């Protein structure tokens, strides 16, 4: 039995879109019958990635954020891409507590994405932009499904 679905969307880097995007992605993930905790994890990780595009990638401008999502078998993949400033040193950027912002950022966005999702891949080029690919496996809950 193959379970495959996808969608993509583009939003402007406005802070109101943080809640919009995480709601859309978590609604899409409902197709995998996740637990409450799994949905929260996805919401939180997506919120971090989108916020980074808004506060870092397009710091002093408004640009486009490209989101594409895929469900394949039992894995949710979320790709979040910007054409902003890019990251010079990805390894350093991903260290917990590292931040280049002085605006009460905790430097924990990547740490949240890493610990709440199964995998994270970051590609970036200075002056060109950044792509974050997040994946999470959602386990099948047969027992629950039969009861319905």
């Amino acid at each position: 039995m193959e379970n495959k679905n996808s969608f993509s969307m583009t939003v402007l880097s406005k802070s109101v879109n943080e809640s919009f995007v995480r709601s859309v992605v978590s609604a899409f993930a409902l197709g995998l019958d996740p637990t409450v905790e799994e949905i929260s994890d996805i919401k939180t990780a997506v919120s971090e990635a989108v916020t980074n595009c808004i506060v870092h990638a397009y710091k002093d401008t408004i640009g486009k954020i490209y989101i594409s999502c895929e469900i394949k078998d039992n894995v949710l993949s979320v790709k979040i891409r910007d054409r902003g400033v890019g990251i010079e040193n990805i390894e350093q950027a991903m260290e917990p507590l590292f931040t280049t912002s002085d605006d009460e950022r905790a430097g924990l966005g990547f740490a949240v994405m890493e610990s709440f999702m199964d995998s994270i891949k970051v590609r970036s080029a200075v002056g060109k932009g950044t792509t974050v690919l997040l994946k999470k496996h959602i386990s099948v809950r047969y027992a629950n499904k039969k009861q319905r």
Partner: protein
Amino acid sequence: MAVEISARGEVLTAVLIGEIDHHSAFYIRKEIDSAIELNMPSLLILDFERVTFMDSSGIGLVMGRYKTIAKRCGEVHVVGAKPQIYKVMKLSGLERLVRLEKCS
């Protein structure tokens, strides 16, 4: 997002309602900071019971208020954190600085 603030002697309580992200944190921060300035509390209670979502912007929010209060040797207590919120707070090691109470 909304904040309900009440002061009683040295204790300032802020009840946060709704979702905390970078977008809403800006407003919450302003509200709490002006109440801190006005009341000079020695204890700030941040009530998270009615918070339905929080990302790492919420950590920045708590840390920022902690810095202000700690300067005056005060304390910050976080109460009512639901599982999702508690999970984000634990990851940050926030409990080393503030008293962190889970939702019962």
